[in-house]
């Protein structure tokens, strides 16, 4: 018996050997190495989550500092985007505006500036953040330091007067030439420096620190709003808990011990946690993926280091605030931490790992 086309061996019909009327040709098929599916997240998604998480803190800042804050914000975002575009053009690479990373840098830089600082200062900051902080290293992913913090510290050192002139928050109507005052941590540091006690410094209460009704960089004032945003990032799986938790815990621990030892000259750990740039730093700046370690153990060390340095600078350093310096210093330590906390390969004995590492 022979096999007729369209007939099986037992006489049953079989299908013709063409799968579709319009046969697919190899050119129609995508061919690439495995895997063939993806979880779905991408870089713009991550950056958008960060922007969303920053929104509560941003809105509180805009509420308390009014037009001045809005001006800083707009100039910073525009400046960062323009600089990103210009840098890409300069090195003849495709513009990377769509990954939102320049927007995030712009927003973070703005939130780290006093609302009353002049527009040209913000522009210089944007150029430093994108140009010196990121582009010179090869763009997103290659910068060792947090770009916004590079700019903030650059400005703090170059323009100390403008960078430490703090507008007193007066609500949305706050005038552009509003009265200026001190930050809570600044007031305490000054009082203690003059031989007075913390209680005599007249620092704002915890309620004002939580809500943000205090002097400071316009985006750092409300601990509560920033904490909300940070928790949301954690819930969305964008950041990992190790950095903010270790950061806040170690800061609280060190300042707490100092406070217990000498309550007259050292503020309570709550003031240190809620005041200054700690919330913004711990949840949004130290968690910058590019400039922090990749392993969870590394992140724990990184966060603890940030906390320790922040506390040391605040307690015994010349500046009332130490978050920016602490994070930048730990950024520098990141490659070392990564090397040190390389995970153990599955099945590798502890001993073996040490030997391999020593070799």
């Amino acid at each position, binding site marked *: 018996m022979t096999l007729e086309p369209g007939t099986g061996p037992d006489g049953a019909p079989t299908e013709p050997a063409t799968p579709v009327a319009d046969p697919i040709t190899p050119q129609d098929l*995508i061919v690439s190495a495995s*895997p*063939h*599916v993806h979880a779905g997240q991408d870089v713009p998604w991550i950056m958008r989550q960060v922007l969303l998480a920053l929104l509560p803190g941003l809105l509180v800042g805009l509420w308390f500092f009014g037009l001045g804050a809005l001006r800083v914000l707009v100039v910073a975002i525009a400046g960062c985007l323009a600089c990103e575009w210009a840098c890409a053009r300069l090195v003849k690479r495709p513009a990377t505006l769509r990954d939102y990373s320049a927007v995030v840098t712009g927003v973070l830089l703005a939130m780290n500036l006093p609302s009353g600082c002049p527009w040209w200062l913000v522009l210089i900051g944007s150029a430093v953040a994108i140009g010196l902080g990121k582009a010179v290293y090869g763009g997103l992913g290659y910068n060792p330091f947090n770009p916004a913090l590079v700019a903030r510290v650059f400005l703090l050192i170059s323009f100390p007067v403008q960078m430490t002139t703090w507008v007193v928050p007066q609500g949305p109507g706050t005038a552009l030439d509003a009265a200026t005052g001190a930050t809570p941590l600044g007031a305490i540091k000054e009082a203690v420096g003059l031989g007075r006690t913390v209680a005599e410094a007249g620092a704002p209460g915890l309620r004002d620190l939580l809500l943000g009704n205090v002097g400071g960089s316009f985006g750092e004032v409300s601990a509560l709003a920033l904490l909300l945003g940070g928790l949301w990032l954690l819930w969305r799986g964008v950041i990992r808990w190790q950095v903010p938790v270790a950061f806040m815990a170690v800061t609280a621990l060190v300042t707490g011990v100092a406070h217990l030892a000498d309550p007259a000259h050292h503020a309570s750990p709550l003031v240190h946690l809620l005041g200054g740039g700690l919330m913004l730093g711990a949840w949004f700046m130290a968690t910058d993926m590019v400039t922090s370690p*990749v392993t*969870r153990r590394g992140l724990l060390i990184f966060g603890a280091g940030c906390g320790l340095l922040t506390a040391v600078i605040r307690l015994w350093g010349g500046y009332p605030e130490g978050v920016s310096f602490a994070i930048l210093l730990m950024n520098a330590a990141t490659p070392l931490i990564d090397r040190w906390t390389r995970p153990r390969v*599955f*099945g590798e*004995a502890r001993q073996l790992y040490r030997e391999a590492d020593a070799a």
Partner: protein
Amino acid sequence: MKFRGGVHPSYHKDTAGLQIETLPLLHRYVVPIAQHLGAPGKVLVAKGDRVARWQPLSEPVGFVSVSVHAPTSGTVKQVAALPHPLGRPMLAVEIESDGEDRPWDGLAPPADWRTLDPAVLRRAIQAAGVVGLGGATFPTHVKLSPPAEKKIDLLVLNGAECEPYLTADHRVMLEQAAEVMEGLGLMMRVLGVTRACVGIESNKPDALEALRRACPADVAAEFMLLETKYPQGSEKHLIYALCGRRVPPGGLPMDVGCVVQNVGTAVACLEAVRDGLPMTERVATVTGAAINVPHNLRVRVGAPLLDVLAHCGGVTPDVGKVIFGGPMMGIGQFDLDVPLIKGTSGVLCLRDDEAARFEGGPCIRCGACVDACPMGLVPSAMGLIAERFRFEELGDWHVLDCIECGSCAYVCPSRRPLVQHFKRGKAEWRGILEERRAKSERDAKRAETAATA
């Protein structure tokens, strides 16, 4: 025990309820000689020869080698390099079916495995061309012949089927439960072990129940429902999940006293001995959004892909990718004129918009890949190193321990082609090691001749 890392892709096990259907006899089969890891066999037939079903088309050359057999009776049209699912043309025997499906008269007589000597069973398994059906296609008799110094005390039966979309193993466990357990008993006898563990992901409790009920009284098996997490079916992770033993880097399961076998392989071993039948068919899941009628199909090895797709109603016009295997580790096909082979656990047809594009933006060091890697590697750093062709450095990062499971690339927000980097990196690093070995050998020889001169 739960292993560290891994990912939770969408499982798409929509075909789990589809009974295994047998693909009707086809007009033409293309049987590649190389369908297993190891040395391809020596071809026994030539153009024009008439062959019978189950007749060997090749014979093993050496120990790590098995035969392939004719899927049906017919005429050999050609013996030539033909398109192969692994990507490049390889030697294959094309058979035109005569429709008679006449069995070979040289088949081994049916036998009872309970009375046979392990050495006899091993020979029968090799003669039947049985390879691991989980996808790696390592010859089964080799895995069942551990060196004397490796004491094996546990046989692990892999029913995890952690690859999304695939349900072939699931169906085999449900529909051929008794044969799976008999096959397990047979393999335990070959290895001389008294303990066996069956590991199944928690999304298939019915499979576990079926196997437990079908387990013969003389087969001592423990059953365990494992966390549904990719890559639960990876040998090393399965062993760890079942008994807490960790296979050392560069090691094999036998280094911790284990042998791992797939459920389909158990059935094939049983058929080889009980019925004397060589492995000429397997169950494969044909599925995906771009196939019209998904199926679980019993396919004869060598069946052309186009005929299989046709049987499943053809592909939709928006098909973007045709994959042999699952979406995490399967192989994307560029030529549809390939046959299904022993290692083809499934044919996955993805729509164009479903197929991931790994264009490879900059690494933003988010650490998602480090969290996901079940082997404890640092894919982020290794990807950057591979990108710069620093393959020697890649060796220090344990690239050879990469199991290419794809978890890192699956979660990478920058869509970096990490697995591609590591596949190349492994090959390059192996080359460097080989070169070094050859050089040190040459040096030793030179020193020897200098000493004698």
